């Protein structure tokens, strides 16, 4: 899932400085599971923002959390509410922030979190990156370990000459992805899957705003007109 971290309070405060009535919009999806942008975090953020207010300030910080900000139907719930606010702060991932901003183009929308990566939850609060969403998965060849994400140099024909005691040359706290790939393939008796040169990648997703299944889009657009 997508993992995010809340932005520094000072940064949020300075973005909001010109606005008096602010609605913080939490998201019940990924960011809520990684404790960055759900209902609890939205409330906490507002408590902190209120506490930082100057004496006599009449600023308003309200909050609302929708099921997921990346889905149209859930954003619709906000339509009646946003009118009375000067600005919105979205605690969703970058996709959610943009979808919210698109729905209310007259309102300034600010991000409240930094979207970090697609990753896993090892334990509560312990998240690790796993996927760069490169659009052309090679995990079948590399024993379920992603060379694009997990190798510091995104090598397709590793390991480079640098690993030391199983760790990446770049950072002794990171294990070398290619040593892990090698060892797991060896264990499975599948070393032949990295015996050949993996050819240059045809990188996908170089055009912005890609659409999956555009035929669905076409159908919906047709229905609307």
């Amino acid at each position, binding site marked *: 899932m997508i993992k995010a971290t809340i932005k520094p309070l000072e940064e949020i405060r300075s973005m909001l400085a010109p606005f008096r009535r602010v609605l913080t919009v939490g998201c019940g999806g990924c960011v809520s599971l990684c404790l960055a942008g759900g209902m609890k975090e939205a409330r906490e953020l507002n408590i902190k923002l209120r506490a930082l207010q100057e004496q006599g300030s009449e600023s308003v910080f309200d909050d609302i959390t929708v099921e997921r900000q990346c889905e149209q139907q859930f954003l619709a719930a906000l339509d009646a509410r946003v009118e009375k606010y000067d600005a919105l702060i979205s605690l969703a991932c970058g996709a959610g922030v943009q979808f919210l901003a698109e729905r209310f183009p007259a309102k300034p929308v600010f991000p409240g979190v930094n979207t970090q990566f697609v990753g896993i939850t090892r334990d509560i609060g312990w998240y690790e990156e796993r996927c760069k969403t490169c659009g052309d998965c090679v995990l079948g060849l590399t024993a379920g370990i992603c060379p694009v994400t997990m190798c510091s140099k995104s090598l397709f024909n590793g390991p480079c000459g640098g690993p*030391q005691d199983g760790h990446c040359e770049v950072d002794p706290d990171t294990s070398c992805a290619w040593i892990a790939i090698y060892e797991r393939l060896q264990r499975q008796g599948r070393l032949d899957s990295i015996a050949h040169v993996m050819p240059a990648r045809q990188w996908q997703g170089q055009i912005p705003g890609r659409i999956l299944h555009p035929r669905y889009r076409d159908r919906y657009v047709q229905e609307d007109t």
Partner: protein
Amino acid sequence: MKSGSRLERILKSGRFALTGELGPPRGADADAVRVKARHLCGMVDAVNITDNQTAVVRMSSLGACLIAMREGLEPVYQMVCRDRNRIAMQSDILGAAALGVRNILCLSGDHQCFGDHPNCKKVFDLDSMQLISMVKAMRDEARFQGGAEITAPPRMFIGAAANPFAEPHAFRVMRLAKKIAAGADVVQTQCVYNMERFRAWMAQARDMGLTEKAYILAGVTPLKSLGMARYMQKNVPGMDVPDELIKRLQGVEKKDQAKEGITICCEQIQQLREMKGLAGIHLMAIEWEHRVPEIVQKAGLLPRPEPEPEQP
């Protein structure tokens, strides 16, 4: 002939090759390159011109290649995958070839976090293996990576690097085989200090017939001091400096350590020359170019051969 480079001609004639290394300066100072180049002239058959090594910005390899060439050296154009995508790489390869560069060394490159711009965006569009394949296809099939035809293909002698001492040990010869299959004509190794392990790796390479398919040059770096030896042992990833060498340097006074380092280096070169299947030495005297003549002289590698000109 694949490239007609001096290095290729020497290796092809079966003579023991010697290449050097030259690091470009951190400024637009052509004289800095010339001074280093003059130390190496006549001492080595070709010189690697490094490409922003350790991810620290320096004069471009190609720029320094040209200056070195004008000083009478044959350059090996080093190219790393960290900073350029395949469009920039291919275009630079064409430019280098047009300017008369005939050797290229294809490397992945040190990660940017080691250098002076740690938060730059890394590229790694290709890895070193894929870069080798690309250069080979450009040269032999007159084809760009994207498939289009090249009107005048670049003639490049393709170099690669190998580290016999890195983990996983069992995979190291396999990786060498992959690089050769990808198109490496010549392979230079990480600095050899552990002769025993290097010998074992060479034996494996010979058994797999790899020394017949590509020329292998053993990397050699003279130790300037005990401090340097310790640093290499502890801090340089993938480097194997045995304790005996450290002890040996400990045994001499500080002022004599450089001399001892050169003696060790010459002994290593002697041992390497006797190793079956080894085609030459790649001497990396890091910021010590001025000592190269002395080392080459003492190691008995002079005079350097004058290879036959390429038959038209």
